């Protein structure tokens, strides 16, 4: 629920209740005052009748005017004097009229009479009806005005907030652009903007430092690795090693290379995670595939792997060129490394998908674990177990869907490109 709607609901409810209470109070007070006024008139009438009786010692004529009736009735007992409101059926137009009546006793020559003087209360009722109508009209008018205010004025009042929100939504760490919020002149929004601006610049700063930390950590690790590696290679040049020593040197050398590749792969994963490969262009995957197959041509031939390519379409995929290269290379080297001698390697590139199939041993891990970091086939101990994680990470970056199937000794990795990248 919008804040505005919630506020409106409370506001309208409160206003309506207040008006209703005010209306009811108003009704009773006005009613009371007017009745009092009417009663005063009736008292004047009473006085006139009593004066008449005092002078003439006789009853005046009963009268029946439009808004006033006077009637007399002989009574056995002395009745109490009282005011009352009664509904009387008027014969003229056959409807009830509310009348205010004063009943009082008189005594003429020992005979008791009940005198009743009535005045129409209709005017009062009409007046009150008018008052109620006006009150209702005011409520409706007020609601209308509130609605208009909410609709136009409040929306305008909230504009700076909405602007801030839009800017926050568009805030992108990678663009390195600080938030530029406009001056609003309203304390609450200014405070919000201040907090948001401070937070965003802090986030930018932290992100930058994290990024440089990742880079620096890699830098710091690569340098000692480079030193160890170079020293080892120099050591290799000396000619008086025993077989055992040679083996040791070679093992150290291989492990250093592995450590270095591991470091580079992890750095690549981090960089993809941090969306540091943002420049995209239309990439012709078929060209990259052909280039990579050329590169590994002799390796494929050496293991007598039968290569089949079905490049029917050459889709232009909108992605980062470096990542496209990494993607294709990882898929192809993966298919060569995990292949068997005299096996097959099939690459299919269609308008919306790329699939690489290769013969190979049954996986020793679960298929769903295939893309996890450091999950690797136990047959291939030299493998880092990061190649397919990188492939998956790249796919995630562009909303490509990657799937793995194994059938009749053939592993197939399929990538379906997302429609907005083709």
């Amino acid at each position, binding site marked *: 629920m919008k804040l505005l709607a919630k506020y409106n609901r409370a506001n309208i409810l409160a206003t309506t209740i207040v008006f209703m209470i005010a209306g009811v109070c108003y009704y009773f007070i006005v009613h009371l005052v007017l009745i009092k006024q009417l009663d005063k008139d009736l008292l004047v009438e009473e006085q006139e009748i009593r004066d008449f009786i005092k002078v003439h010692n006789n009853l005046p004529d009963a009268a029946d005017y439009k808004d006033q009736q006077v009637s007399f009735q002989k009574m056995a007992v002395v009745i109490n004097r009282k005011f009352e409101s009664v509904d009387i059926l008027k014969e003229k137009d056959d409807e009830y009229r509310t009348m205010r009546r004063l009943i009082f006793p008189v005594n003429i020559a020992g005979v008791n009479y009940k005198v009743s003087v009535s005045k129409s209360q209709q005017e009062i009722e009409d007046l009150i009806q008018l008052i109620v109508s006006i009150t209702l009209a005011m409520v409706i008018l007020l609601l209308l005005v509130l609605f208009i205010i909410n609709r136009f004025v409040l929306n305008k009042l909230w504009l700076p907030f909405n602007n801030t929100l839009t800017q926050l939504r568009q805030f992108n760490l990678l663009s390195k652009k600080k938030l530029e919020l406009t001056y609003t002149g309203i304390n609450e929004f200014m405070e919000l903007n201040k907090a948001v601006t401070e937070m965003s610049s802090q986030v930018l700063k932290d992100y930058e430092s994290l990024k440089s930390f990742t*880079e620096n950590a*890699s*830098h*710091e690790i*690569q*340098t000692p*690795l*480079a*030193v*160890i*590696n*170079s*020293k080892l*290679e*120099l050591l*290799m*040049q000396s000619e008086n090693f025993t*077989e055992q020593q*040679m*083996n040791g*040197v*070679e093992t150290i*050398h*291989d492990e*250093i*290379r*592995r450590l*270095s*590749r591991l470091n*580079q792969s992890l*750095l690549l994963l981090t960089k993809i995670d941090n969306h540091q*490969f943002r420049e995209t262009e239309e990439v012709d995957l078929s060209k990259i595939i052909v280039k990579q197959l050329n*590169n*590994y041509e*002799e*390796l494929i031939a*050496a*293991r007598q792997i039968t290569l089949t390519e079905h490049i029917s379409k050459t889709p232009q995929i909108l992605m980062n060129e*470096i990542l496209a290269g990494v993607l294709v*290379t*990882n898929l192809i*080297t993966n298919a*060569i*490394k995990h292949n068997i001698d005299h096996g097959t390697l099939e690459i299919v590139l269609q308008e919306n998908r790329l699939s690489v199939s290769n013969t190979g041993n049954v996986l020793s891990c679960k298929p769903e674990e295939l893309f996890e970091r450091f999950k690797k086939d136990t047959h*291939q101990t*030299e*493998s*880092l177990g990061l*190649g397919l994680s990188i492939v998956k990470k790249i796919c995630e970056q562009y909303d490509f869907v990657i799937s793995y199937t194994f059938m009749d000794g053939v592993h197939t990795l399929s990538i379906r490109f997302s429609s907005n990248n083709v």
Partner: protein
Amino acid sequence: MKVLIIEDEKSLSESITTYLKGQDFICEIASDFKTAIEKTELYDYDCILLDITLPGGSGLSILKELRANNKMDGVLIISAKNSIDDKVAGLTLGADDYLPKPFHLSELNARIGAIIRRKQFGGSSIIRFNYISIDTQAKVAAIHNAELLLTRKEYELLLFFISNKRKVISKSAIAEHLWGDEMSGNLDFIYTHIKNLRKKLMEAGEADYIKTVYGMGYKFTD
């Protein structure tokens, strides 16, 4: 041939110097920004190995300075920052090549050789080893002036061997030189290529120059 090594890690520049000495290079070392600027201003080098992060300044500024002064020394950036930005920036500023750390000394040596050939002979130099000659521009090898039919990788392998003649080259250095980082791991497949190259050289009447150094790699020597 004179090579300047601009690198703050002393043990690394020492290793490079030791390795390159055997390949007829004279090496000088600059381990900070100031020394590097002084040396590059005073002397001409056939190739400069340039580290990007240096005490006192960025290697890229040295490169900028060099090119601004119209000095066309070959520049090979050796950086631990395998970062694309640095690579692109370096190459745009006029570096000839980029080699991320850690590298194989044999790879470094081969790259320096390639840069010098490109700079000095316009890429048309012929490299010789006994009766073997390699025309690096036409990318053909010949023995006794008769063309040796090699596959592309065999040609690259021969060139890599001759560039690092009389040095032990590890299998992983060979694998990475020929196929890049991705194919390292099990390196048994290299054996096939070595065997084929050896066979072709011997059939053309050369001696068996490719010596297997047990447990380590290979050595191209007479």
